[in-house]
């Protein structure tokens, strides 16, 4: 592409009062040789935007550098299709964080402009990479409330849907319950109503856009978003179908009640909440206890049976309190019967609080906080519930005809995860241990059987307890397999009402995925990004570092061991770029050379003037810096920030280049370590740290102090203290003295 450059400098938001705009313009015109350089009082105003648009139309400008505010704001105003647009952040990083009109402030603004014009010169116009034969079909796995609603939502939006259900009928858990909590007004309706699930099943089965596979499982899922080839096995026969995206709605399983023997499970007339539904359904609402079929007049409900307990399920299943209140109403269909609920806390989020109030208003629904210590026989099949610290007294016991344990939800993804984690651990101990593990460990039902280098199922995530979660803060629906979106109880504990709306969210994401791959844009989180990793394969040594480090399995190896991209799986983090020792992976606007060239332009005038280079993760550190600037925090003027898509893309050559050019110190701002921190790209920051461990060699070679380079973990909320952390580093470097390579 023939580039025609234009540089535009904004004077608004106090930039004009901090920086000498004329001198800054000369950087473009004289320093970088770009004659077309204009400034405007408010560049984001319609007049300012028109100024640029006119140049695009009349002058044919197609490579634009804008020196104004952070690229995180005004992105709609400064969007000029058909051009490459680079933005130098001289508002947040200069005007708002520096003393106005000093030599160092001016120099900082000039450096940013130079760096971004350099980037503009080095970069190229991205062309979308659109793969062929893309499918827009959505595969929904699981035919419960979440799955059926997902299927209906997608089908009603005009997409064809394949719905795979393991059981011979659709409906999931909703089939097993006697009544449900109404979704309308609790005050006017009875507190228990029919599930109506059969109507949903009917709608799904009769929908022209939905194809239902019952008694079916997924044998294999190959490919990538837009091109998933899924082999469905039903009744001994297999069929391979192509789909664009997957909604995982396989739900949950009740917690293994045999582990609840400390609450009396195993004794006669002690049942779980799921078994209780069965009793009510079977007897059409009458609560007949298992031991003798006698009507239970006193039913005790023990909440948090194994839940919020580090030895069982550390989390709250969120629906059991409401479920027990509902089941208490089953008991109360007999006006002489009482339901006694023993809770840690009643947790009925959202509108369910009103349900709690209504249910509690029933004279025969009795509640108390209690630490249940045990359940013992009281004779005649009756039971004593023993508890402490209740609202009724310090140590009390109560006799019941029947005890119901409010057991929690375990996601269907948990068992395969645990099995696979065990397998990995065994494999690490050697082939014998692995073989033994495979022989001795019962293999649970796998769900997706993904053909991924990283394993066949949704990976386990620290702190997610087996739920198909990846980043609940920013991307609640996305799993760690691009194109696979989770909905309902498999994602986090939820009730059917929530699962219903959750299904809609996951379907929206699946549709977005199909839409983006059709346009050749990243699916997420860089949802605007047309660039993609484009390796110079001729120099590839097949070292496989990229395939190992790619967090999303976007790089596979062919039979010869040569890596190749499944680009629709890629999230454009650039981890491969940082991983490649040959530095062959580039994006059109992001490469080792582009960043390296930007760094090389940083002026280091004399020995008295320090220059610090700071790489900042665009997802956490960079927004934190912007926020710090918004709070007018001061940052040492020697620091130059360079935004990285992810610190996982950090290449050590930049460090060597910068230090040998006389940069006095290098700071890396990555996100916090640990999976539960929810890094956008799984563990880019940790990878950078690992690579950084080898920086010692570079420093040794250059005979420089190790303290000149440092990595800090920053979260987006650290904006208050981040400037001080940076300034502290600068002071430390100043104590070490200037880089001896300066000026060489």
């Amino acid at each position, binding site marked *: 592409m023939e580039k025609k450059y234009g540089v535009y400098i904004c004077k608004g938001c106090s930039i004009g009062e901090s920086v000498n705009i004329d001198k800054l313009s000369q950087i473009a015109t004289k320093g970088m040789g770009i004659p077309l350089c204009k400034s405007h009082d408010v560049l984001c105003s319609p007049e300012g935007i028109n100024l640029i648009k006119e140049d695009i139309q009349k002058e044919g400008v197609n490579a634009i550098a804008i020196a104004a505010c952070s690229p995180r704001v005004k992105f709609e105003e400064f969007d000029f299709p058909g051009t490459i647009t680079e933005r130098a952040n001289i508002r947040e990083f200069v005007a708002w964080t520096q003393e106005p009109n000093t030599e160092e402030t001016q120099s900082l603004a000039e450096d940013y402009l130079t760096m971004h014009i350099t980037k503009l010169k080095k970069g190229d116009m991205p062309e979308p990479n659109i793969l062929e034969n893309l499918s827009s079909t959505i595969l929904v796995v699981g035919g419960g409330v979440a799955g059926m609603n997902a299927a209906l939502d997608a089908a009603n939006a005009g997409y064809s849907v394949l719905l795979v259900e393991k059981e011979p009928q659709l409906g999931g858990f909703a089939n097993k319950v006697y009544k449900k909590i109404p979704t309308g007004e609790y005050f006017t309706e009875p507190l228990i109503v029919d599930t109506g699930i059969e109507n949903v099943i009917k709608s799904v089965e009769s929908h022209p856009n939905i194809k239902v596979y019952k008694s079916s499982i997924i044998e294999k899922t190959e490919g990538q978003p837009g091109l998933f080839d899924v082999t469905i096995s039903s009744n001994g026969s297999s069929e391979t179908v192509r789909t664009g995206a997957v909604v995982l709605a396989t739900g949950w399983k009740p917690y293994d009640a045999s582990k609840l023997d400390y609450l009396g499970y195993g004794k006669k007339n002690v049942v779980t909440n799921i078994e209780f539904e069965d009793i009510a359904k079977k007897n059409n609402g009458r609560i007949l206890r298992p031991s003798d079929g006698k009507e239970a007049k006193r039913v005790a409900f023990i909440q948090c049976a194994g839940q919020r307990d580090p030895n069982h399920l550390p989390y709250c299943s969120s629906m059991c309190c409401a479920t027990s209140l509902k089941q208490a109403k089953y008991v109360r269909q007999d006006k002489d019967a009482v339901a006694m609920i023993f809770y840690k806390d009643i947790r009925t989020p959202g509108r369910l609080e009103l349900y709690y109030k209504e249910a*509690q208003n029933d*004279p025969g629904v009795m509640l108390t906080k209690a630490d249940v210590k045990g359940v013992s026989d009281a004779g005649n099949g009756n039971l004593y519930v023993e508890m402490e610290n209740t609202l*009724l007294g310090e140590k009390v016991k*109560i006799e019941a005809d029947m005890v119901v344990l409010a057991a929690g939800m375990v996601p269907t993804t948990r068992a395969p995860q645990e099995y696979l984690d065990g397998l990995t651990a065994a494999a690490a101990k050697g082939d014998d241990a692995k073989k033994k593990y495979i022989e001795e460990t019962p293999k649970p039902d796998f769900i997706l059987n993904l053909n991924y280098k990283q394993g066949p199922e949704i990976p386990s995530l620290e702190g997610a307890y087996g739920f198909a979660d990846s980043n609940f803060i920013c991307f609640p629906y996305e799993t760690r397999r691009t194109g696979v979106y989770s909905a309902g109880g498999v994602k986090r504990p939820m009730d059917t009402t929530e699962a219903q709306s959750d299904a809609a969210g996951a379907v929206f994401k699946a549709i977005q995925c199909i839409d983006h791959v059709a346009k050749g844009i990243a699916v997420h989180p860089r949802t605007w990004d047309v660039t993609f990793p484009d390796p110079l394969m001729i120099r590839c040594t097949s070292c496989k570092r990229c395939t190992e480090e790619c967090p999303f399995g976007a790089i596979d190896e062919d039979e010869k061991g040569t890596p190749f991209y499944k680009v629709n799986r890629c999230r454009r983090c650039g981890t491969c770029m940082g991983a490649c020792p040959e530095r062959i992976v580039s994006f059109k606007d992001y490469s080792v050379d582009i960043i390296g060239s930007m760094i090389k332009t940083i002026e280091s005038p004399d020995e008295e003037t320090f220059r610090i280079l700071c790489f900042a993760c665009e997802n956490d550190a960079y927004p934190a810096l912007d926020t710090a600037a918004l709070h007018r925090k001061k940052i040492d003027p020697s620091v130059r920030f360079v935004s990285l898509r992810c610190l996982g893309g950090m290449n050590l050559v930049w460090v060597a280049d910068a230090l040998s050019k006389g940069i006095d110190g290098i700071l890396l701002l990555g996100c916090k370590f640990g999976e539960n921190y929810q890094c956008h790209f799984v563990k880019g920051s940790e990878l950078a740290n690992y690579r950084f461990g080898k920086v010692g060699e570079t420093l040794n070679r250059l005979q420089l102090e190790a303290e000149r380079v440092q990595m800090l973990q920053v979260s987006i909320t650290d904006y208050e203290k981040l400037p001080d952390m940076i300034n502290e580093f600068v002071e430390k470097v100043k104590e070490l003295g200037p880089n001896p390579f300066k000026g060489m």
Partner: protein
Amino acid sequence: MEQVIRPDLSFVNDVIASGGESLKKCYQCATCTVVCNVTPDSNPFPRKEMIWAQWGLRDKFIGNPDVWLCHQCNDCTAYCPRGAKPGEVIGAIRKQSIMQYSQPCFMARLVNDKKFMPLIFLLPAVLFAVVLTAIGKFTIPQGEIVFLKFVPVLLIQALFVPALGFGSLIGILGVRKYWKDMSNTRLSEKQAGGCLSCSTENIMNSVIATVQEVLAHQKFKKCDVAKDRFSAHFFVFYSFIALGIATAIGALYIDILDMPSPFKLGYGTPVKLFGTIGAIGLLIGVLLMISNRFKNAQKVGIGSYFDWLLITVIGVVMASGILSWVTRLANIPMLAYPIYFVHLISVFSLFVYLPYSKLSHIFYRVAAIVYAKYTGRDKTN
């Protein structure tokens, strides 16, 4: 020691039916005990009473002074975040306590059940009508209005002395049982090692302190939201005392000294002054009670049948008393005698239903206060 809890659904239903319909709304935040100015500091009410009642723990209320220590200021009700109205609920529990102690319990049920309301006024009316008919007096007498012409002294003595005696006796028997239960509860707490007040004070000192407290209306002064209850109760209380004195002097004149009735027209005596002051005080007190109920209805609820029955009976006593006096002065026999008849019935009802109506707090609350003082329960730190 481990306690066995035995929920009794019928007790829950009884409390709800007696004006505690908000009972089940309580979720045990304990705001009520925090805002209550009347409760002792240790093991305060009414939070614990709320959950006991929710669980139908009838036994917990046997031998418990706390429900009677409550003066129904209704600060708890005003501040309750869930509208559980603890003050009203405790009132309903007190009603249950009356049924427990005032024998025979069918009488308590009769008095406190809305559907028997016509009956409880009809019964004495019929009784009076029958007796008056039997002695041939159930007509309006001729000449100057003298109520004794209509109902002879002897008949009044024969009906009212036993009525008051019956009411008092039942009340005293109830208190005896209540006291015994409180002692037993304390004993078993002591044995369990969980005794709240193991030492006892001098009983006479406790009684004296209680009398002082009651006369000064100390507890009512602590009420916050319904602070007007102090003056209402004060007027009603002292008016009854004034009326009681007037009646006693009247009885002294007529029955003992065999002198003419001091209430005779045109026969000015200090006794009449007592009666007049009492009547006017009662009028003010009752009006205050009614207006307070309406004024605070938003915050604390309008009250239950249990409350209104007593207000009604006292109101009728007051109104028929004043009206029979006025109609006698105006010399309208056609009104004066029937109103006097109503007055007699209402006073009779007041006496005979004394231990069963809300008025029985004369016995039980006083007993509870004495007991609390006696056992040190009443101490605030």
